[in-house]
């Protein structure tokens, strides 16, 4: 039943994603092609903490994190390396159980892995023995769905990120940026409601990273899924996110929440505007205050 609904969704969205780009820029961050109710919270963390290990060696990683991410909202977790922001994000997948507190997605409490999501990590984690198309189609295949129903959407997504013609290539024939784009397509092909991105562009060079940021924004604007992005790049977070959670060092908590009110679609030039600089300045000051940065 669920699978049938999902397949239909995939088909209709494959039709919608055939090269449509949001026409006019708009200041409202929650504007979407799908009707999104403002305040319709999709992912809710309530006093979530996470410890690893037991007894003396117990490590406190996540400390009392609470937030609500609206449906279709782009959230960025911004913090220093090793602070626990990745763990915080992974808690939403249900793959890692929280030690205390509650996590709800779409009103349902998460107690086991939540599967209506797509994940992309810093490593692209492509399967070397499969070609590009087959790597993207791993998603329906591993779920036991009919792979053929997703093939067109997979091709559309690959074309969207500039990889048409590469479907039959093997991962070792691709550059790092191309591989990471395949991994993003894999996270999107089943049209999930939630997208978890764990520093997906961390290993890329600066130019490729800029391009990936633009691509990701475009894809997101066409689909408007809820995104939780983990990054340690301040400009990347400001460029992409509707809201930024600035995370403290370990045990991590949300030190500051910053709503980014820049019009979309954002071009790379937005980074030279005073508004952009002001956001970066605020966040940098926050890191100084926490002692993450020292003058």
């Amino acid at each position, binding site marked *: 039943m669920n699978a049938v609904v999902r397949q239909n969704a995939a088909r209709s969205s494959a039709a919608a994603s055939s090269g449509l780009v949001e026409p006019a820029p708009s200041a409202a961050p929650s504007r979407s092609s799908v009707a999104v109710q403002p305040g319709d919270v999709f992912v809710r963390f309530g006093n979530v903490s996470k410890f690893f290990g037991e007894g003396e060696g117990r490590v406190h990683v996540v400390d009392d994190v609470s937030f609500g991410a609206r449906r279709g909202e782009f959230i960025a977790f911004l913090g220093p390396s090793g602070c626990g922001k990745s763990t915080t994000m*992974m808690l939403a*997948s249900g*793959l890692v159980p929280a030690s205390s507190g509650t996590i709800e997605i779409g009103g349902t409490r998460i107690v086991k*892995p939540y*599967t209506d*999501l797509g*994940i992309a*990590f810093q*490593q692209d*984690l492509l*399967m*070397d*023995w499969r070609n590009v198309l087959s790597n993207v189609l*791993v*998603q329906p*295949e*591993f*779920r*036991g769905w009919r792979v053929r129903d997703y093939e067109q959407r997979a091709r559309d997504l690959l074309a969207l990120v500039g990889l048409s013609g590469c479907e039959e290539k*093997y*991962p*070792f024939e691709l550059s790092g940026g191309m591989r990471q784009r395949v991994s993003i397509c894999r996270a999107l092909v089943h049209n999930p409601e939630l997208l978890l991105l764990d520093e997906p562009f961390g290993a890329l060079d600066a130019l490729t990273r800029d391009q990936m940021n633009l691509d990701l924004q475009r894809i997101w604007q066409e689909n408007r899924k809820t995104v939780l992005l983990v990054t340690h790049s301040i400009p990347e977070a400001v460029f992409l996110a509707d809201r930024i959670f600035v995370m403290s060092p370990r045990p991590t908590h949300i030190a500051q929440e910053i709503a980014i009110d820049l019009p979309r679609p954002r071009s790379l030039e937005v980074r030279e505007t005073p508004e952009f600089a002001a956001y970066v300045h605020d966040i940098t000051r926050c890191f100084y205050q926490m002692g993450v940065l020292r003058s």
Partner: protein
Amino acid sequence: MTVVAAERAGGGVRRLVREGGALDRFGVPVGLAAGFLLVWELVVRLCQIPVFLLPSPSVIAVTLVTDWRVIYLNIGSTLVAVLGGFGLSILVGVPLATLIVFSRLAERVFYPPMVASQAIPKVAIAPLFIVWLGYGIAPKIGIAFLIAFFPIVIDTVVGLRSVPPEMLQLGRSMGSGSLRVFLKLRLPSALPNLFGGLKVAVALAVVGAITGEFVGSQSGLGYLLTSASGQMDTPLVFAVLVTISAIAVLLFLAVEALEKFAIPWHSSMRSRHLGP
């Protein structure tokens, strides 16, 4: 037209000479071997070394031809022992490695006796195998198995464990059961290591089979080797050794061909030659 043809021919020559070309691939090893044999031949002839001490390559070659029938008749049972032991070591080794990866208990139960079994010289247990399994092909297969399964288990365990944890998380995030994750993620990831183990194992299986035939047998190249050396027929000993090496090399190449077919995507298949 002729220019193109000439260029093509020139390219062919360059390809022959260049690193990785046909000359590099076959010319160098063949040349080295020929030089070695030549020196051997000269030393034996000039120093007039008696044939029962060290036969010259030409004598060995002649023996290989004249005694080919007796060698040929003994290849079969050795080959059965090698392939039987090798096949059995795959059938046992891969599932055992899987069990070890998935169960800490299995790791604790199987690892110590496995390592201990490798520490005992196979020649020392071979008589026991004869006592237990008789004089037929079974003890030879048993010894070939005992020596060949170890690298398969060790390498498969390493391979199955080398999957990044994020990859497994990804698999679970797609709602996959552990069987599917194992078959489609872990097993393919382990293939490069598995083939590394297979290549070591197939060479060791030959050693195991010959060892088994040494101890108690009426057929096989190992048996021929002992009986020939018992009769001081040193040229035949060398001819059998050449045959055994040839079998080992051919089996190794067969596994390598299978590897190329199975994992063309792996970096070991693409960047074989490091250096300038």
